[in-house]
């Protein structure tokens, strides 16, 4: 019953014995917290004072803070990968900071901390870098907006949450930042809050991901219960050790608790990463400002699900069932989204489906991956694709943003022939398209190559579907490209400039990254056990994917380069399939039916009705009955003094008779 002294936040230094490691962690812990905290500071300052005091300068403030973060993140990456991350040739996870935030019981507590390992350091770089690009781009794109300061505040909040997520040491810490990421996404999608469609989209995004988070939460509860810890490292150790073998024993419906827990956690990840069938929010989320889509809905937040699976990968390898679910979901998402993307006409929606498809790639790459040695290729490939995808997809979105900024429309039919008006956008967009289509030597080629290789070695069916999807990817991306920049030679009425320097600069930087990112020997740095993985570049194997990519590009060129009737004819020829794909396979409609018709009408309305009529009716009924009885007997209380005296004396006489004669 004793009162425990308050635990001071303490830096955990005792994991390694070596003295130099200790100083190493000290040096990390001195500046790494700044990486997430600077954007948070930006959020607080701009959120409270931005509206009044920094109306113009809030963009500069936010960008500057993030620039510092980015530099620190790059420095961290350099330190980790090249200076002292390796111990005996293996990249070790380093817990730089950890303190108890909320303690539930002796073992189970929510800790806030920072862990550095290859994937978290990589994500630090990706998030800060892309966020910085978006900050810079927004300086021009969002100029003159009324809530400019608020916009930068929200961007800061998002960046903070995302960084907090990737450096989490604790499963619950991930969940906390997971929710924060969700809410910043909600706020940013609903940035144009007076537009009903934006409000609806933000609501949808939040609710769908919240629904998925329910799975995540229950998954955490299951894992924490059986693993006796919430700390990821301890959890993995506990579950791997033999005394915790109850978790792998069959429990409910013949499925082990571990599989249940991991599958539920994966549902959370699938929701955030817009995997089928929880993807419906992502296309609608494009209602937000385009730079936001580039940051949140292309490069960072939507890959959180992939990151989550990668972070818990040692656990997932213990449950083949969970991994096969991941493979299946990833593959279906990749294919389905690619098909839908071929039919959409809103350029941001095409990009959204393309994002979903690419994340599907990352997911199934994790699903087919093993844990040891060469078998872990899928893991490395998935992370590699995550890394390169962040660059070229944000580049695509920013390019689309520049186009939309100029045309003031999202629809393909309003565009065409823009290559003359926006040369820089055109070139960078083309680079990104080539990258996503998997044409060498751009970044996407290398990462996709590794995924396909991993698929080839593990499951031929997966490989076939992935190969087909990569052809589709090339087709729909170049459909987009040709529709925007070629086709008709439309004369623009007003001769806009292509955009400010702040808008062009990020495009160029990202394009350069897209070109060089693929050349990084990624396997050397990121792999399942921290051991370097040799890359298996095999020109012969590459032939098929590249051929599919080029076929897709040529088909798109044939159909869309000039204005022809071909697309029309083909879509008519495909008939029902085209229509179904255009209507996104009616998944939205199914959801609407379930929520509006079933949840609202069959659950909500009856609940409200029962409450008002049955439950409250019972209460009122009791009151009514009491009232009626009271009305019946109140006639006796006539208010006539004489009758009262009569009752009084009558009563006395009655009592007198009772006591004198009857009570013997």
């Amino acid at each position, binding site marked *: 019953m004793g009162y425990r002294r308050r635990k001071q936040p303490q830096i955990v230094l005792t994991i390694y014995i070596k003295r130099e490691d200790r100083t190493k962690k000290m040096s990390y812990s001195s500046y790494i917290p700044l990486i997430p905290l600077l954007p948070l500071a930006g959020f607080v300052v701009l959120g409270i004072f931005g509206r009044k005091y920094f109306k113009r300068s809030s963009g500069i403030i936010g960008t500057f803070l993030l620039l510092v973060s980015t530099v620190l993140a790059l420095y961290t990456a350099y330190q980790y990968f090249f200076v002292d991350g390796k111990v005996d040739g293996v990249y070790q996870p380093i817990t730089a900071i950890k303190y108890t935030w909320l303690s539930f019981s002796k073992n189970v507590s929510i800790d806030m901390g920072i862990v550095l390992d290859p994937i978290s350091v990589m994500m630090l770089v990706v998030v800060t870098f892309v966020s910085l690009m978006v900050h810079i781009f927004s300086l021009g794109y969002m100029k003159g907006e009324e809530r400019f300061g608020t916009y930068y505040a929200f961007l800061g909040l998002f960046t903070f949450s995302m960084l907090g997520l990737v450096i989490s040491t604790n499963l619950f810490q991930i969940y906390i930042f997971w929710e924060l990421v969700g809410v910043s996404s909600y706020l940013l999608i609903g940035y144009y809050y007076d537009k009903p469609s934006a409000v609806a989209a933000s609501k949808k995004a939040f609710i769908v991901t919240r629904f998925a988070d329910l799975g995540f939460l229950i998954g955490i509860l299951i894992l924490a219960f059986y693993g006796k810890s919430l700390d990821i490292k301890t959890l993995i150790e506990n579950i791997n050790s033999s005394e915790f073998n109850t978790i792998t024993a069959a429990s409910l419906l013949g499925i082990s608790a571990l599989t249940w827990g991991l599958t539920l956690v994966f549902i959370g990840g699938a929701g955030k990463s817009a995997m089928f069938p929880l993807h419906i929010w992502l296309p609608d989320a494009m209602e937000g400002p385009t730079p936001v889509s580039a940051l949140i809905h292309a490069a960072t937040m939507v890959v959180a699900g992939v990151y989550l699976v990668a972070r818990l990968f040692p656990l997932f390898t213990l449950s083949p069932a969970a991994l096969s679910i991941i493979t299946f979901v990833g593959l279906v998402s990749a294919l389905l989204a690619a098909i839908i993307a071929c039919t959409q006409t809103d350029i941001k929606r095409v990009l959204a489906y393309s994002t979903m498809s690419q994340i599907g790639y990352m997911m199934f790459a994790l699903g087919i991956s093993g844990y040891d040695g060469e078998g872990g290729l899928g893991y490395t490939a998935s992370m590699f694709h995550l890394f390169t995808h962040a660059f070229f997809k944000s580049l695509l979105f920013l390019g689309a943003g520049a186009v939309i900024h100029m045309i003031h429309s999202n629809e393909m039919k309003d565009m065409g022939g823009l290559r003359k008006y926006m040369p820089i956008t055109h070139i960078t967009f083309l680079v990104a398209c080539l990258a996503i289509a998997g044409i060498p030597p751009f970044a996407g080629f290398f990462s996709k190559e590794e995924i396909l290789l991993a698929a080839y070695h593990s499951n031929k069916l997966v490989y076939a579907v992935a190969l087909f999807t990569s052809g589709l990817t090339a087709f729909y991306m170049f459909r987009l490209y040709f529709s925007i920049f070629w086709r008709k030679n439309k004369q623009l009425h007003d001769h806009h400039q292509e955009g400010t320097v702040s808008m062009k600069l990020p495009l160029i930087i990202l394009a350069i990254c897209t070109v060089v990112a693929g050349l990084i020997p990624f396997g050397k740095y990121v792999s399942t056990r921290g051991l370097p993985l040799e890359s298996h570049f095999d020109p012969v194997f590459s032939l098929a994917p590249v051929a599919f990519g080029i076929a897709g590009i040529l088909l798109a060129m044939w159909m869309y380069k000039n204005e022809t009737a071909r697309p029309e004819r083909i879509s008519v020829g495909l008939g029902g399939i085209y229509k179904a794909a255009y209507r996104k396979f009616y998944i939205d409609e199914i959801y609407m039916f379930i929520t509006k018709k079933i949840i609202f009408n069959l659950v909500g309305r009856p609940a409200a009705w029962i409450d008002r009529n049955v439950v409250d009716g019972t209460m009122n009924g009791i009151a009514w009955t009491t009232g009626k009885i009271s009305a019946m007997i*109140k006639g006796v209380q006539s*208010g*006539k*003094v*004489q009758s009262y005296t009569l009752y009084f004396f009558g009563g006395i006489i009655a009592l007198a008779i009772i006591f004198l004669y009857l009570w013997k």
Partner: protein
Amino acid sequence: MSDIPISHILFVSTALFFIGMYGLFTRRNLITMLMSIELILNSVNINFVVFNKYLYPEKLDGIFFTIFIITIAAAEAAIAIAIIINLYRSHRSIDVEDASEMKY
């Protein structure tokens, strides 16, 4: 004086009591009702005195009670008449049936 039997006096007090009762039941006028209550009280007083005198002549308890009741009755009458006057001021009547605002 000791010739008078106790029953005579008790008869008087009972008569007085029931006259008071009758008045209380039938009259609507508050003053009359007050007077009836005084009659009842006086009948009780007589009882006290008589029982004291005839049963315990060596004690004075009954007498004390009588004096006590007379005092109380005086105070009560004062308050009652004050209420009646106030009622008259507000209702222009001292009929008990007229003051029916607080009924039910």
